[in-house]
């Protein structure tokens, strides 16, 4: 089971800034281990953010995104108390969803 994300969402007027920190190895599939064998790729492929259950952002990620990635985006029209949920899915089929409340 993957470790939890840290999500912060701060509203300022009409604009809400969402900051997400994900815990993931993000192995590119290009590296070799001590024995010279390629370390298999293992990274997040899909990211989706929902505001009160409605999809507001989707992203397709690849091997070039860093380990423990940080994602920041803005949402229009979110109010304090609204729920922001972020889901990622990696190439091994593992997935994780975490939720935060807009403040």
């Amino acid at each position, binding site marked *: 089971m993957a*470790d*939890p994300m*840290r999500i912060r969402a701060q509203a300022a007027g009409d604009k809400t800034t969402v*900051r997400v*920190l994900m815990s993931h190895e993000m192995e590119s599939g290009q590296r070799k281990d001590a024995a010279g064998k390629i370390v298999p790729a293992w990274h997040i492929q899909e990211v989706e953010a929902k505001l009160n259950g409605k999809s507001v952002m989707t992203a397709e990620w690849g091997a070039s995104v*860093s*380990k*423990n990635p*940080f994602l*920041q985006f803005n949402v229009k029209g979110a109010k304090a108390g609204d729920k922001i949920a972020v889901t990622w899915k990696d190439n091994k089929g593992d997935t994780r969803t975490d939720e935060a409340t807009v403040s």
Partner: protein
Amino acid sequence: MRMTRALPLMVWAALGSMSAMAQKTAVQSIEEYRAMLQDGNPADLFEAKGEDLWKQKRGPKNTSLEKCDLGKGPGVVKGAFVELPRYFADTSKVQDLESRLLTCMETLQGLNATEIAKTPFGKGEQNNVTALATWIAAESKGMKFNLPQAHAQEKAFYEVGKRLFFQRAGPHDFSCSSCHGQDNTRIRLQDLPNLTKNPGDGVGFAAWPAYRVSNGQMWGMQQRLNDCYRQQRFPYPGFASDATVALGMYLGVNSKGSASVAPAIKR
């Protein structure tokens, strides 16, 4: 002939330094880069993990670490980090944060401290020690270092740490002070704090544990010291050994009054 050749070179050198003055200095650019990283410091993830580990019942005795005495009484975490290393009466030893955690993990949880100390960094229980240290350090963020120096052992450790800091050895005839004994030096783009005096807020001893962006690893002070010794081509010091604690004591006492920024983020 020699004069005329030298002259144009000097002019170029002067022009070069003038244009550099108009631009940002390397240090300023690095500061900007660090500020950009600061907002999403993955150390937060390790901090959360450490807090869970502190409260979680683990080990053969199935207990949490909530009764662990880090120097300010059992279970007191806030402010403990800025007063370590210090002398502990129950173990009759001067201990730093990581060696104290090993003691607690052994006495409270029944885990084998010797085994953990022998585990390489980044593996098994070592990851848990680092996460715990990250959370404990974070609980004292912004507080000022004030290591106790009342006990004779604490004074002795400071003196030993000082000796180790200046001891030159190894194939490169290096000491800690070779890199950390002067102001305004760096290795490539990394500033090297002068650790023989107070380096100031959030520098040197007041900046570890830290997350290293380049390798995606969380490092505690023990690993920082271990890697300094690797770079000096010394044999690796034992994890939580008296030598590393003594060095920590020297650096920590020198940092008196500096505000801690740990867990920090590094290149």
